[in-house]
């Protein structure tokens, strides 16, 4: 799968690094470019973790402001976006802790769940199943489906599969090990698949709970 940031080679400078240098040199308009480039992605990450639109708006603003303040600490050897995601994830978790009155919330909490480890609903889906729903209905289904996943699963799925980051960049952004990212991604994919099956399974045999399992 193509990744957002793997276009440049090992020794080539990422375009974001040049923009960061310009900001450090006093050019605020270069920061404007960086904000425009990443604001929607950061908002989505914040929304996945906080599950609250107002909080996500605040987190997005705070993350960009904090990144601006701390820009001197940014090391050119890491990617600006992964550094920014890390700030946004921390801001989101802090916001969530405040809402839950101090209860610890962590992205690296490994949630042991049977769900998704072995696919149970084996019904095939209708061809282009999303076309049975309006855009608004589909949006609600996708949102409702992903909401039930643990925060660490949602963010890994968002970064890897929706935004197209590499496993290594996702691990760096979230402060997780590579095996932890891989394990969460597999479970996130399988859990989402299983939950979407309720809506997308093929009509024939829809009265049954999936086709007969023949797992070997």
């Amino acid at each position, binding site marked *: 799968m193509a990744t957002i940031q793997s276009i440049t080679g090992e020794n080539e400078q990422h375009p974001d690094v040049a923009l960061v240098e310009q900001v450090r040199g006093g050019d605020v308009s270069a920061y404007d470019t960086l904000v425009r480039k990443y604001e929607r992605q950061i908002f989505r990450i914040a929304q996945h973790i906080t599950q609250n639109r107002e909080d996500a708006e605040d987190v997005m*603003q705070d993350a960009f402001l904090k990144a601006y303040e701390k820009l001197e600490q940014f090391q050119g050897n890491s990617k600006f976006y992964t550094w920014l995601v890390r700030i946004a994830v921390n801001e989101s978790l802090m916001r969530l802790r405040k809402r839950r009155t101090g209860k610890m919330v962590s992205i690296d909490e490994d949630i042991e769940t049977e769900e998704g480890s072995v*696919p149970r609903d084996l019904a095939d889906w209708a061809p282009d199943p999303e076309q049975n729903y309006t855009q608004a209905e589909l949006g609600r289904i996708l949102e409702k489906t992903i909401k039930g996943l643990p925060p660490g699963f949602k963010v890994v799925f968002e970064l890897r599969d929706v935004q197209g980051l590499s496993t290594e960049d996702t691990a760096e952004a979230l402060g997780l090990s590579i095996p932890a990212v891989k394990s969460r991604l597999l479970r996130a994919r399988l859990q989402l698949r299983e939950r979407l099956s309720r809506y997308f399974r093929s009509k024939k045999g829809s009265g049954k709970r999936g086709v007969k399992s023949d797992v070997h």
Partner: protein
Amino acid sequence: MTCTEFLALLDDLIDDSVSADTRAELQQHLHGCDHCEVTLNTTRKTIEIYRSHEIYDLPADLRERLHAAIMARCKKGC
């Protein structure tokens, strides 16, 4: 190859990061296993649907308002 072994390599297959030999083994398993074929196809479709339908998108007016607020604070030195 068993279904459990197939499932352990599902992500690598989807992400196209398996060797030619492993891919051939996975393909061979798929030929005889409807269960894994459905799992693979519907998992791919899950990813595709989430990629092509952005949830939590920012409406343009809200985005502009938030953007302006960020930049105003940055210009003041935060």
